[in-house]
């Protein structure tokens, strides 16, 4: 029997709600072990072993990624199989360099070469080379977590503990084996948080330099943003009760999942889902929602296989339309910039990216990229009810320019004999100027982006704790603008929806319904909860 460690509580930020009790599984990168450099022959063997381990892992990963992401890792696999890449490393090893040093220096040179490319598409590939460099380097130095140390999918719950996660790494993890995640760094508003919320994976971020013990019993409290290591009996009992309450509530809410959302007073509310990575819809019954209210297309651009071309985009849109079975599918055009930089596309060195070239502004400034997306959308519009939504619209001219580009894309497709149709064109209302001037915009629908609207109206950043009290979605100025847009929609017969976090927050949803909002879009994991809340309203 080991000595009982005292209970310790580490504080971070809740990024995706939930409570999990389980064992901590540390995936924080260990420091590179000091493996003494061997003879050139030994170092060459070490390199070969690391390369074949990396190739095997990439191959394995490539077979598990979904249809839409097929081919994502093939570039890295091709690189690792290429003698041209490995030969200079072998030569350096033969002349006495230790394998890690030889590998790093050679790959650094390749990365720098891609970074210097004049073409943004090639520049963006430097990230893949850097990823491959680090993957092999970690294998050479023993720094990477063993890839197969995921715990068995047994009775016991596990908590994933890591330094930070990239969106692709988050998607790579089998969350069926972990009840939740705890990250030492990370942001509650980052993309990983969005992915976790959409999938209902409890996540606490920003635990700082918490001294966590692998294998220790712990409770992940992703409601309060805490991790309790070695909880004492009393703590355990408290959480057991909370988890029981949550289970009972979740079971009660689940009753509402297959039903249309209707308030107590009988008002039908459209509840659609927000989609990030398209594979998320595979586990959702389309009959449980009123279509897709927001598709974040930025995620397509993070693929290591390069920016999505027209066919790849079309395939993704077509897949969503097929899934929805006649329900409306809303695709938001690329919303890069702000907190969503895309290497080679978004400008670097902006002093205030949130007030810079982002959303529709960036798309119109990069018509060669925008045209590809609009062409894919025009083709997809032929397949079913497609709604195209423009982010960060400030003035009517941005709508007109987009409509012109869309028409040109359709004409070109028709000339080429390809089927195309004009999708329904709408805009996000997140810039205060657009909310104030809403009557000036010739669009078919409006969708209030409450996250950015709150940020711009109150002039507070979402992730600045010091001004957190001012960042209030219920600020009368915010509600005034939402009310205006809803009233304009009602007066002109245009649909007004809301697709921000406000819609799935029980503190705000009743207020929104009170303002007359009749259409919302929420993370798939929140569908049942939101429908249950609507049923209690009014």
């Amino acid at each position, binding site marked *: 029997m080991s000595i009982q460690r005292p209970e310790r509580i580490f504080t971070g930020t809740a990024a995706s709600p939930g409570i999990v009790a389980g064992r901590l599984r540390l995936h924080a990168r260990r420091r590179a072990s000091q493996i003494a450099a061997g003879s050139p022959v030994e170092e060459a063997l070490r390199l070969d072993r690391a390369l074949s381990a990396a190739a095997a892992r990439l191959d394995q990963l490539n077979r598990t990624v979904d249809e839409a992401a097929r081919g994502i890792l093939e*570039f890295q696999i091709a690189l690792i199989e290429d003698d041209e890449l490995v030969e200079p490393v072998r030569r350096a090893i033969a002349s006495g360099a230790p394998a890690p040093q030889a590998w790093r220096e050679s790959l650094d040179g390749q990365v720098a070469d891609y970074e210097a490319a004049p073409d943004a598409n090639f520049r963006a590939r430097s990230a893949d080379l850097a990823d491959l460099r680090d993957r092999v380097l970690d294998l050479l130095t023993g720094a990477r977590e063993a890839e197969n140390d995921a715990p068995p999918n047994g009775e016991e719950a596990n908590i994933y503990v890591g330094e930070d996660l990239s969106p692709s790494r988050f998607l790579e993890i089998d969350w069926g084996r972990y009840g939740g995640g705890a990250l030492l760094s990370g942001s509650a508003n980052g993309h990983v948080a969005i992915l976790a919320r959409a999938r209902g994976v409890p996540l606490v971020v920003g635990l700082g330099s918490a001294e966590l013990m692998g294998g220790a019993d712990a409770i992940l409290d992703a409601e309060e943003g805490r991790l309790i290591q070695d909880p004492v009996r009393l703590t355990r009992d408290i959480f057991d009760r909370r988890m029981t309450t949550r289970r009972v509530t979740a079971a009660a809410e689940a009753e509402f999942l297959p039903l249309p959302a209707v308030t107590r007073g009988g008002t039908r509310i459209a509840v659609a889902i927000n989609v990030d990575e398209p594979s998320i819809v595979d586990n959702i019954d389309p009959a449980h929602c009123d279509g897709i209210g927001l598709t974040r297309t930025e995620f397509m651009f993070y693929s290591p296989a390069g920016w999505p*071309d027209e066919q790849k985009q079309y395939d993704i849109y077509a897949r969503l339309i097929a899934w929805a079975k006649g329900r409306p599918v809303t695709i938001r055009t690329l919303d890069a910039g702000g907190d969503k930089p895309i290497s080679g596309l978004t400008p670097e060195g902006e002093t205030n990216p949130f007030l810079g070239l982002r959303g529709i502004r960036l798309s119109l400034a990069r018509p060669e990229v925008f045209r590809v997306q609009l062409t894919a959308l025009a083709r997809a519009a032929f397949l079913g009810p497609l709604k195209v939504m423009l982010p960060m619209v400030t003035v009517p001219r941005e709508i007109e320019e987009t409509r012109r580009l869309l028409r040109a894309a359709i004409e070109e497709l028709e000339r080429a004999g390809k089927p195309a149709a004009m999708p329904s064109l709408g805009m996000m209302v997140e810039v205060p100027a657009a909310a104030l001037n809403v009557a000036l915009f010739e669009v078919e629908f409006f969708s209030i982006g409450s996250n950015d609207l709150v940020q711009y109206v109150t002039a507070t950043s979402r992730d600045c704790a010091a001004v957190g009290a001012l960042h209030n979605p219920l600020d009368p100025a915010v509600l005034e603008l939402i009310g205006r847009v809803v009233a304009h929609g009602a007066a002109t017969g245009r649909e007004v929806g809301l697709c921000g976090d406000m819609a799935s927050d029980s503190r705000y949803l009743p207020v929104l319904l009170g303002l007359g909002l009749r259409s919302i879009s929420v993370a798939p994991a929140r569908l049942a909860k939101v429908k249950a809340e609507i049923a209690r309203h009014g």
Partner: protein
Amino acid sequence: MNVESAAEGSALITHGIGLHARPSVKLTKLAKTFTSAIHLRGEGVVDWVDAKSIVRVMGLKLREGSTVHFRAHGPDAPAAIDALVGLVKRDFDEHSAA
């Protein structure tokens, strides 16, 4: 008897963002299915590079609108050229009718 042959061919790159990662992977994979030595070069560039090396092919950084030249030496040289030119002309099979 050793049946050695040589063949050459060229094609215009119409792919929207040029010979980037995905098309390059397809090209090198196809090249590797032939036993002939296959090389390619970009428009106005003297150096021929190994068509079976992703590092070399991507290293050309060929963009849309430029012409790529192939040459092959070996038993299946003509078939290799036909296949590679065909791949580029078909836009790397990325714009097939849905």
